[in-house]
C-alpha cells in the first residue's frame, strides 16, 4: 500500500513540472525559444546533444532496473547466479567501445561548431547582400550596463536597441569586476573583462524585446544587472536614434565617472552623445599595463593559458 503512495508521488513530480512549464510558455523561454541565427544554431547543437544523451540514457536505465529486478536476492525465477563471473572480453570491448565512439562523434561535432560559432567571427556572410553590420560597445559597470553606439553617437543604460536582420558587432569591456553579457534568445554569452575588448556577434531575425542579463557575479547588486535588448525595423531604429539625439542630454566625462560609481540605476537613461573614444579609454585604462591587448582573436589569451601550464 505504502509503495503505491510513493509511486503516485513520483509520477506527480514531472507532471507538476510540465504544468509549470506550460504556464511559463507565454513568457520568455530563453535558450529554448531562439530568435536569431546564432541562438538557432546553438539550439540545434543543444538538441543534438540531448538526442545523443537520450540514446545513452534509455538503454543504461533499462539495464539498471532490469538487472536490479531480475537478479534481486529473493527472486522467484531461476535467474542464474555466477558469483565468480567477473570478466568477459566481449562485454568489456563494448563497454569501452561505445563511449569512445560516442565521444568521437560528439568531439567532431563540437570542433566543427566551435569554429562555426566562434563569437568573434563576423556574421555578415549570413545576411542578405548589402547589409552593413552595426557596432555597439558594451561596458559593464557596478551594477549597470552602458551601451555606446560609435556610429550613431548615442549612449544608453540597461537598454539596447538595434535593427532586426542586421548583424550586431558587440565590443565588450568592463570598468568593474568581470561580468558576462548574455541575451539568451539571441545567442551565447561572453565575459566582459577590464583591459580587454572582447567581441560578440549576434543577430536578431525577428523584432521583439529580449531579456538580457549579466551572467558572472560582480558584487553586491549583481542581481540588478538586467537589461532589455530590443530589435526593431530599420526605420523604427532610425527614429529612435533621431529621437534620442534630439531630446536626451549628453553624457559628459564627469557624467560617466558618476555613472561608473557603484550603484543601481532603475531608469533606462539615454544620452544624445558621449565623449569621443570613451570605450577605448576604458579598455586602455587597464589594458596598457597588461601584456596583451584585446583578446578578440583569442591569440594572446590562449598563449597565456598555455604558458601557465
Amino acid at each position, binding site marked *: 500500500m505504502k509503495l503505491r503512495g510513493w509511486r503516485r508521488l513520483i509520477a506527480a513530480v514531472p507532471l507538476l*513540472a510540465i504544468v509549470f512549464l506550460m504556464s511559463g510558455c507565454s513568457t520568455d523561454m530563453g535558450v529554448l525559444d531562439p530568435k536569431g541565427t546564432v541562438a538557432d544554431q546553438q539550439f540545434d547543437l543543444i538538441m543534438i546533444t540531448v538526442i545523443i544523451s537520450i540514446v545513452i540514457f534509455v538503454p543504461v536505465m533499462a539495464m539498471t532496473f532490469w538487472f536490479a529486478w531480475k537478479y534481486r536476492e529473493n527472486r522467484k525465477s531461476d535467474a542464474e547466479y555466477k558469483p565468480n563471473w567477473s570478466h568477459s572480453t566481449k562485454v568489456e570491448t563494448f563497454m569501452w567501445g561505445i563511449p569512445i565512439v560516442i565521444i568521437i562523434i560528439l568531439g567532431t561535432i563540437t570542433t566543427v561548431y*566551435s569554429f562555426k560559432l566562434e563569437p568573434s567571427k563576423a556574421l555578415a556572410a549570413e545576411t542578405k547582400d548589402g547589409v552593413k553590420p552595426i557596432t555597439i560597445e558594451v561596458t559593464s559597470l557596478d551594477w549597470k550596463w552602458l551601451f555606446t553606439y560609435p556610429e550613431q553617437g548615442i549612449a544608453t543604460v540597461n537598454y539596447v536597441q538595434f535593427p532586426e536582420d542586421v548583424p550586431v558587432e558587440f565590443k565588450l569591456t568592463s570598468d568593474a569586476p568581470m561580468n558576462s553579457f548574455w541575451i539568451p534568445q539571441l545567442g551565447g554569452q561572453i565575459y566582459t573583462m577590464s583591459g580587454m575588448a572582447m567581441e560578440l556577434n549576434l543577430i536578431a531575425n525577428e523584432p521583439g524585446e529580449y531579456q538580457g542579463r549579466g551572467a558572472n557575479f560582480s558584487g553586491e547588486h549583481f*542581481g540588478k544587472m538586467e537589461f532589455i535588448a530590443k530589435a526593431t525595423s530599420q526605420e523604427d531604429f532610425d527614429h529612435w536614434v533621431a529621437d534620442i539625439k534630439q531630446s536626451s542630454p549628453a553624457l559628459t566625462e564627469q557624467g560617466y565617472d558618476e555613472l561608473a560609481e557603484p550603484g543601481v540605476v532603475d531608469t533606462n537613461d539615454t544620452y544624445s552623445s558621449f565623449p569621443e573614444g570613451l570605450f577605448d579609454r576604458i579598455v586602455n585604462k587597464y589594458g596598457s599595463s597588461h601584456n596583451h591587448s584585446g583578446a578578440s582573436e583569442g591569440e594572446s589569451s590562449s598563449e597565456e593559458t598555455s604558458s601557465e601550464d
Partner: protein
Amino acid sequence: MWEDIKDWASDFFVTGDPLIYGADVGIVLASLSILFVLTYFKKWKWLWSEWITTVDHKKIGIMYIIAALLMLFRGGMDALLMRTQLVMPDMEFLKPEHYNEIFTTHGVIMILFMAMPLMFGLFNIAVPLQIGARDVAFPVLNSLSFWLFFMGAMLFNLSFVIGGSPNAGWLAYPPLSETMFNPGVGQDFYIWGIQISGIGSLMTGINFIVTILKMRAPGMKLMKMPMFTWSVFASSLTIMLAFPILTVTLALLFIDRFLGAHFFTLDAGGNPMMYINLIWMWGHPEVYIVILPAFGIFSDIVSTFSKKKVFGYKSMVFALMIISVVSFVTWAHHFFTMGSGASVNAFFAISTMVIAIPTGVKVFNWLFTMYKGKISFKSPMLWTMGFIPCFVVGGLTGVMLSVAPADFQFHNSYFLIAHFHQVLIGGVAFGYFAGLYYWWPKMFGFKLDEKLGKWAFWLWNIGFYVCFMPQYVLGLMGMTRRYSTYSWDTGWFGLNLVSTIGAFIMGAGFLVQVWQIVYSIKKMDKDTTGDPWDARTLEWSIPSPAPMYNFATDPRVSDVDEWWEEKQRIAAGKPTPKPALEPIHMPKNSAMPIFKATFWFLAGFGFVFDWMWLALPAMAGVGITMLVYSFNYDTEYYIPVDEIRKTEAAAGRAV
C-alpha cells in the same frame, strides 16, 4: 573609553541582522552546554587522551565524520536560506549583501569543509583496515591533518559572527576579491580558513599514498587491492598534484591583499585571468578528488550486495587512473566564454569529454557486477541504486556542458547549477552516505535502523529531483546563478517554487538521518559478527568496532576478495592457519598536532585582522612546536601479547 569599545565591538562582531543574533545566541548556548557537560561528567581528561591527542586512524576518522556532519548542517542551512529567498519574485527575506555571503559560504563549506572531511573520514576508517595495516604510514601527521582541517573550518566559520563573511563566491574571483572591491576581512577569513585546512589535505594525500604503497598486508599485490583502496590512491595522487596549486594561488591573493602586490589586481600589470586559470587548475581536479572515492565505495558495495566479484577489475583500475590524470587538462572548460578562441575551446571540450569515457565504463562495470548476482537492497545498496540514475543524468548534462559552443548558452546559468549539484549530491553525497551506512557497524559496533534509513533515502532522492530538475529548465530560460532576486515578468516563479519545496524535502531527509542515528544508538542493535553484510574485504574479518591494533596477527592475502575467499575456505574446513601472537608496536599519542594547529589558527586570525602582535608569535609557535617534537625520541610502545589475547577474547574471538 566605553564608546571606543562599543565602536570596536560593532565593527568586530557582525551586527544588525536578527538571523545572526539568533545564531549567536545558539552558538553561545551550545558551547556553554558542551563545556558544562564535559566538566560535570569530568570528561576533560577522557576527551584529551582518548580523542584530542589520539593518533588512531579509526578515531581520527570518526572525528572527521562528526565535523563533516556538523558542516553539512551549516551548509544545508545556507542552502535553505537561499532557496527561501528565491521562492518567489521580489523577495526581501535576505538583503543582496547577505545573500552573496550565504552562497559563498554554502559553496566553500559543502566542498571543502563537508565533502573533503567526510571523504577523509572514510579514508581513515576503511583504508588501513582494507589493506590489513595497523595504522596509516604517518599517524601523527594524520592527526595533524585533522586538526589543521578542524582549525581551518573553525576559522572560516568564525567569520559568521566576527568580522563578516566572505562574499565573492566560492572561488573568489579577482578583481572582486581584491581589496579594491572587497576591503573587509571576510575575504581574509576565506583565504586563511581554506589555506590552513588545505595544508592538512595535502598531507593526508601524501600520507595515504605512502600507506597504500608501503603498508599492505603480505601478499596483497597492487592488483589485489580492494576497489575503494584503489580509488583512494587515485584521489590522493590527485590531491598531491593539485593542492600545491591552491596553496600558491591563495597565498598570492593574500599577498595582493596584505602587501599591496599586483598578481591579480586590475592596476599595475596584475592579471585577474591568471587567478581564474590557477584556481581551476586546482578546482577541476578537486571535483574528481571527491568523486573518485565515491566510485570506489560504490564498487565495493555493488560487489558485496550482489554477492559477486566486481566485474572488470582491471578496467575499473585503469578508468580510475585515467580520470585522475586527464582531470588535470580540462580546467579551461570553466571559462569557455573568456574568448580563448575556437582551437583552445575545442581542445578543452574534447579533453573534458574524454573523461566521460572511463566514467561511462565504470557505470557499465557496476551494472555487470549486478548481472547474474544475488542483489539485496540494504541501505548502502539502496543509495547506490539511487546514485546510478542520478549520476548518469548528471554526467550526460556534464557532457552537454562540455560542448563548448553550446556552453555559451549554459554557462553560469541554473543549468550549470543543476548539473554540478546532480554530480555532487547524486554522486559524492550519495556515495559518502552509502559509505557511511556501509562502514557504520565497523566504526561503532552497531547497525543503523533500516526502516528510518529507507525514509531518509526516499526523502533525499525525491527532494533532489524536485529541487534540481526545475533548475535545468530555469537555466535554459535564462536564469543566471547568484541572482539574489528576480522580477515577476521573468516567468521563473513556478519552477523556483517547486525547487524550493524540493530543497526542504532534502532538509527533511537530513533530519530523518539525524533521528535515525539517535534512534539506533538507543536501540543498540549490536553487530557481534564483525561482518554484518556478509562482505568480501579484510575490514570485515575483524571484530566491530575494530580493536585499537586492528589485526591481532598480520593477515596473508591471496585474492582481491580475501575475506570472501577465506569464508569459503572456513566453510570447507580449511581455514588459513594464523601465526602466533607477537607484541604489537604502536605509536604513542601526541599533543603536537593540536598545539600546532591551534598556533596556525591564531596566526590565521592575526593575519585576518592585521594583528601582527598575534600573527607573528603564533607563526613562531608553529615552528617551535615542530622543533620540540623533533627532539622527542620517545614516541612508540608495545602492546603485550596478554593484552591482545584479552581484547580478542572480549570481542568473542579465540586466538
